[in-house]
């Protein structure tokens, strides 16, 4: 349960981003190319001009390890990385979380249906999954990003505008549906023939009840294992998409956009790319262990398990 605490800590930290920002007296969304920062009593410019050799280039300040004072250093616009990291966490968790939930729900539904009913249903659904998986999503993303600059898309319930977060959520969710649906389908194909399912069918139990009561719990392990992994993968996909300007628009931040910014600073300030990466890893690790705990708590059979966890 320490993991639950850690996860809550991460979430709370991110929610406290505005507080940190006023404590640090910095604006993480505006370029501060001329700002100065005080370290150990000395005023140092945030963007240090190169003075040796040919005096080429500006290097942002590195980590100062002083809370509230460019703790992790600055990015290439002079903005405080720590502040952006906290704000970014909110966006990242939101986008990846929503996308993961949508993926899991849709993929489970498709996988269960395809595996259980077989035949034409399976064929059609499987081919749809093939199309989804083989489709060049980047092309769609580039195209959409340009279309949306001019006007939004009105789907009745949801209005998708250029800066809307629904866009990356949906794109990321759809891309990975086959990744979950096909393994689920595979498992269901096997389970379909197991004795207790055959027994249930023989007893005349309606199909939807078999799906929900008998098959779903048995694939739940796979689902629970996949969820934190999908969260991690989604955060990384969000990073790739943000490069194409889908989703979090500048100057807003997400862990993905900070990694992108950090790519351009890799040779001088690796911390800018490292910090969000570590944040993602930590979040995922914690969620993963949490997930294991949840699974163990719910799984009837693991109560009779032979080893401890």
């Amino acid at each position, binding site marked *: 349960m320490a993991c639950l605490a850690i996860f809550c800590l991460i979430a709370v930290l991110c929610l406290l981003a505005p507080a940190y920002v006023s404590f640090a007296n910095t604006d993480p969304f505006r370029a501060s190319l001329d700002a100065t920062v005080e370290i150990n009593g000395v005023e140092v410019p945030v963007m240090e001009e190169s003075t040796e050799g040919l005096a080429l280039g500006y290097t942002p300040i590195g980590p100062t390890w002083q809370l509230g004072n460019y703790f992790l250093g600055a990015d290439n616009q002079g903005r405080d990385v720590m502040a952006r990291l906290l704000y970014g966490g909110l966006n990242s968790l939101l986008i990846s979380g929503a996308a993961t939930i949508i993926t899991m729900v849709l993929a489970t539904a498709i996988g269960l249906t395809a595996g259980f009913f077989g035949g034409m249903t399976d064929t059609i659904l499987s081919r749809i999954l093939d199309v989804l998986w*083989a489709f*060049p999503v980047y092309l769609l993303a580039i195209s959409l990003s*340009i279309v949306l600059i001019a006007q939004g898309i009105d789907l009745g319930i949801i209005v998708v505008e250029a800066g809307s977060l629904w866009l990356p959520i949906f794109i990321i969710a759809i891309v990975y549906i086959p990744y979950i649906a096909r*393994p689920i389908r*595979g498992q269901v194909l*096997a389970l379909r023939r197991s004795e207790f399912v055959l027994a249930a069918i023989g007893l005349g139990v309606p199909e939807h009840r078999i799906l929900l009561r008998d098959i779903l719990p048995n694939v739940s392990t796979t689902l629970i294992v996949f969820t934190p*992994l999908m969260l*991690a993968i989604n955060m990384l996909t969000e990073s790739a998409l943000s490069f194409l300007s889908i989703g979090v628009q500048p100057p807003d931040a997400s862990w993905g956009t900070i990694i992108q910014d950090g*790519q351009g600073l890799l040779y001088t300030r690796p911390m800018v*790319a490292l910090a969000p990466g570590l944040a993602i890893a930590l979040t995922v690790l914690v969620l993963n262990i949490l997930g294991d705990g949840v699974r163990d708590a719910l799984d009837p059979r693991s109560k009779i398990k032979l080893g401890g966890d």
Partner: protein
Amino acid sequence: MLLALIRRFGQMIFVMFGISILVFLIFFATPGADPASRIAGRNASPETIEAVRKSFGFDQPIWVQYYIMMKKLFITQDLTSFVNRGWKVIPAVIDTIPVTLSLVIGAAVLWVIFGMLFGILAAATRGSIIDKLLIAFGLVGCAMPVYWLGEVMNLFSQSRYHDTWLFSWVPPLGYKPLSEDPEGWFLTLIIPWITLAILYIGLYGRVLRANLIEAMQEDYIRTARAKGLSETRVLLRHALRTSLISFVTLFGLDFGALVGGAALLTEVVFGLQGVGKLTYDALQNLDLPVIMTTVIYASFFVVLANALVDVVYILLDPRVRSA
């Protein structure tokens, strides 16, 4: 059996063409994607643009253009690029295939072996510190973007520590064909293989571990144990087979996608001119003929891989046989 194969093959063709039509439509629906101006050159006069438009057939209705492109792609096989005019697309794509295959097959070998090792070891030592460490490492692997990891590898092996004993064996970036320079081919690919495999090792290991643990609680395992078989034998010969379903499914999805060019960021970072890099450049340039060709190529492999996986299911889990 034959009928099933033919049916499956027919579906594959259907999927591939469906995707190609979607790609075509998306391309023309994108404002600014009209290639005529970009081909004509900056500050071209309206007459010049019109002439270019005519010569490329952009003034024809969409379905005519689609038909012409498909004809050039499959029948006459002389489809040329929009951006690098006169450059035949099909030979270009064929040239890049060995590069991608070298990268992907090598990485696949690595991640299958290590993924399985991970999963089995973690499941066997379940709950112990080894298990926890393995999970942690695996997850860290999942959390690192491939392009970031690749750049960091380059930073260390080509730039910072290039002259130390650690990395002095690393050759300059860029693919060396196997037939010309086998040693160079191998050395060049080691770091890209590791970079690409790290993400999957963590993922696959994790999935396998979970499936194994679950399988170990099945009745037929208890039967095997009751029969007096050793724990190792039980694990490897009985539980593993059925636990591999998810593993194999994922492998089919990933391997199919990678062969089709999904490893594009790895290829870009390491300067390997594979299908992925070709696709990436074509997307940046909005070079429709190349995009079409690579998309059809990629979808072929994805669909093929998935079909093969369905066959493998039957081998793995006898219960599926009667499905």
